[in-house]
């Protein structure tokens, strides 16, 4: 018996969602980069100007947001390696799914190292 056609909405699996996440994290990192170049440029103005702006990075809310930034950067970095392997490695396309999980494992390990350290900096004396 013939099965019903699946419809026209593309329902990608991990390959699609990793692609979506790569774009979203990329855009987020891009806009932070613009801000970060401008705030660092204040070292050319005066120590007071730079210190007062960098003080906002030391607040609890920005300190927590920075965990999101680092998480986005680490995902984008290692998923980017996965994309390169898909392009250049002979078996890259075959193992793209497994490589996605490898990216997640690396991400969890690095975040497990970073998050407690960052929290101790934010909430420490």
């Amino acid at each position, binding site marked *: 018996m013939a099965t019903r056609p699946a419809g026209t909405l593309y329902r990608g699996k991990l390959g699609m969602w990793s692609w979506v996440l790569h774009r979203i994290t990329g855009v987020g990192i891009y806009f932070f980069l613009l801000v970060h*170049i401008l705030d660092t440029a204040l070292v050319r103005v005066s*120590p007071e100007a730079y210190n007062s702006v960098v003080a906002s990075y*030391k607040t609890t809310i920005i300190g927590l947001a*920075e965990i999101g930034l680092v998480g986005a950067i680490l995902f984008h970095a290692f998923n980017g390696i996965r994309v390169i392997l898909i392009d250049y490695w002979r078996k890259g396309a075959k193992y793209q799914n497994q490589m996605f999980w490898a990216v997640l494992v690396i991400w969890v390990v690095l975040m497990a*190292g970073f998050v407690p350290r960052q929290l101790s900096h934010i909430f420490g004396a």
Partner: protein
Amino acid sequence: MAIIIEQPDAPRSRKGAQWEKRAWIFMRASGIILVFLIIGHLSVNLVLPEHGVKAIDFAFVAGKWASPFWQAYDGLLLWFALIHGTNGMRTLVNDYTEREWLRKSLNIALWVVAATLILLGTLVITTFDPCIDPNVHNYLPDLVCKG
């Protein structure tokens, strides 16, 4: 509004194809370099210092940029990250804008922003002067300031 869909088998102009191929290769080459640069950047500024982000101030930057190594490091990060990011944004603009004038305008804006910030950032790194801080000798005792 007319949406122009290119003939899928229409060959790109030779120049256009070369440019897209080079951009594609650049994203991968710079990506690998950036993975190392960014992990080093985050480690040295956020993770390793005793108080992490709270240790960052003018003196911290002056201490780092007293070394040509960190000036070059931050310069490379600036150039690679901004060009990589701008080209990534160009890909998104090309994918999601339907009106040709808007697509062109956004792409021009992206490269103007990139050129401006690369120029600004490079000037900041190369002309940085710790002597604008009157207390500079508290943390850079060997520094000689003119005047």
